[in-house]
């Protein structure tokens, strides 16, 4: 238990660090949301000053940070200038869509990567392994932006998948089953882009870890005892190889979030990506800070999940943690 308390404290510390850092950076920013108003002859300078005071942009940084922390504690994460409403609820709607995309993509990517990687490792150096290695190598040299745009063009030209948005126009009139189908179809393209971007790295790691374990004496012995290959691979080898893979899962959350941000903008998925971009262009300070912080929260949760999995999968960590 101490183990998790320590990890959680670490995570909270990390979040504090990020929020402080973003705030410090924001203090260095030349210009803010209201600068643009100043150029507008229809808005008097007094109004701008009053607005600045209302949103407390004229207060010192420490006071603003304290206020913001208070707002975070109340769940509204500051105030959006452009939307004239608390940031929290605005962010959550987008974050839900982003999560829908990333969680689906993660699950799919791992479901594909595990069997492919294991298969590749079990035929190390032979035809299937070579085909998989070359395919992943090819995918690795195609950056996600190039991949996402390419998929989009294919989709638009062939009409196989709907592009843009989360649902069709008449979504509300559809039956629940058709609603599900509609969202799934709209999700297909961004999910494919994310999975294809994440897959090569995952497959390569699975292959490398499993191949290493397959050389171990205990597995040779197991093979000699006539244990069927499938059980050998998926039960013994995978378990022994799980440790670095679970750590990789923790690492890959960050990459996936970045990838999702880009894919969302390219494919007009109403997630955090387009929302954040819009906020940057409008200098909507608290939305940007909130978005960055939210991504950190996802990241931390992903890493905690990895820790829990590691604890569950690796007896060495369990005993080390309870011995302390």
């Amino acid at each position, binding site marked *: 238990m101490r183990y998790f308390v320590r990890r959680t404290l670490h995570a909270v510390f990390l979040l504090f660090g990020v929020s402080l850092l973003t705030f410090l950076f924001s203090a260095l920013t030349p210009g803010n949301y209201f600068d643009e108003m100043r150029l507008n002859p229809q808005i008097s300078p007094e109004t701008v000053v009053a607005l600045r005071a209302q949103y407390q942009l004229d207060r010192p940084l420490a006071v603003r940070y304290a206020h913001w922390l208070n707002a975070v504690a109340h769940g509204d994460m500051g105030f959006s200038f452009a939307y004239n409403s608390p940031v929290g609820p605005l962010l959550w709607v987008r974050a839900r869509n982003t999560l829908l995309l990333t969680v689906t993509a993660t699950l799919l990517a791992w479901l594909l990567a595990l069997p492919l990687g294991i298969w590749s490792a079990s035929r190390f150096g032979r035809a299937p392994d070579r085909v998989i290695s070359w395919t992943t190598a090819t995918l690795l040299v195609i950056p996600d932006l190039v991949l996402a745009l390419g998929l989009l063009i294919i989709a638009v030209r062939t009409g196989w998948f709907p592009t843009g948005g989360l649902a069709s126009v008449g979504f509300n009139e559809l039956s629940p089953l058709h609603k599900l189908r509609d969202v799934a179809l709209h999700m297909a393209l961004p999910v494919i882009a994310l999975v294809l971007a994440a897959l090569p790295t995952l497959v390569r790691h699975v292959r490398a870890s499993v191949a290493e374990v397959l050389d171990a004496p205990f597995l040779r012995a197991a093979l000699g005892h006539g244990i069927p290959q499938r059980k050998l691979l998926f039960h013994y080898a995978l378990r022994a190889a799980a440790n670095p893979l679970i750590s990789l899962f923790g690492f890959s959350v960050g990459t996936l979030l970045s990838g999702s941000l880009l894919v969302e903008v390219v494919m007009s998925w109403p997630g955090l990506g387009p929302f954040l971009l819009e906020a940057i262009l409008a200098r909507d300070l608290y939305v940007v800070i909130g978005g960055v912080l939210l991504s950190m929260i996802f*990241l931390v949760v992903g890493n905690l999940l990895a820790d829990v999995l590691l604890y569950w999968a690796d007896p060495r960590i369990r005993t080390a943690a309870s011995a302390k």
Partner: protein
Amino acid sequence: MKPRRKLTIWLVVLVVLHGIIAAAGFFAPYDPVEQDRERPYVPPMHIHMMDPQGHFRLRPFFHPLRLREGSFDQYEEDATRVVALHFFARGAAYRLLGVVPSRLHLFGAAGARVYLLGSDAYGRDQLSRILYGGQISLLAGLLGAGVTLFFGALIGMAAGYYGGWRDELLMRAAELFLALPWLYLLFALRAFLPLAVSPLEAFLLVVVVIGMVGWARPARLVRGVVLSMKERDFVRAARGFGASDIYLLRRHILPETASVLLTQAAILVPQFVLAEMTLSFLGLGVPEPMSSWGNLLATLQQYNVLVSYWWMYLPALAIVPFFLGYLSLASALQERAGTYKIEEKGGWNPL
């Protein structure tokens, strides 16, 4: 293949690729900002060797395009006109590598403009824009990697050499930067810098933003090298003879980090070129009329362009050979150094 040989091959490939981009003026038939408002969105032209009469011609030629009857954006070949392609032709003035003034181009045509990769909304030659855009994107990537490695090495050496609370503080900060999703970090940094700036300022801004993102990993690797080096006998001996910290770091420790830094450079440059592309694609980077691989792709955000003019996607493919080259170089460097760590196991290594 032997690591050494592999290294040589990929180095040559990369030098050639960079050479083409560096000499963009020569390989590009036109000036990248020269417009032809009569020819917006011309599709890539076909180069022929057989003329309409079925005779073989030694000199490749093309038929100029004209608007199809009753259409405003559909072109067709005007088979009655034949324009020959001239090699080493004289054309728009440019400065080779920014210094040598010249008018010589690899190819050109007199009488009609040739669009090998089509034209954009203003009738600017897509091939020329890709070549010139590469200069911006690659320079941003190279400079960004330079900035990152400089700070990474500096921070890593300081943390590893001095240890104690400095090490603790710097490495906690590095963990923070490693944990942050890089695109969010890029966004956040960009959000806090001015939006409306001149093209040159924007370019420098992009370099700075990119350069600030990636210092954590090289810093950690350099720190590891420094930690092991500073206890080596020859370093201790030098210190015993009264060498100063700066001298030790510069003379004995920095050279040992070269292999780590080189490998990191090969990994970082393509990533940073991509970062520039991403920023410019999103409208946060290099602005028009300057071209970069990123802002050339920005037009694809318009639906009609996406549907009708597929050749606007071609700039995206320009980065692929560079990715291939750099990733192969990185893997060859790693093999040569014999450091094949778990972290890099998922790296790019097809052979």
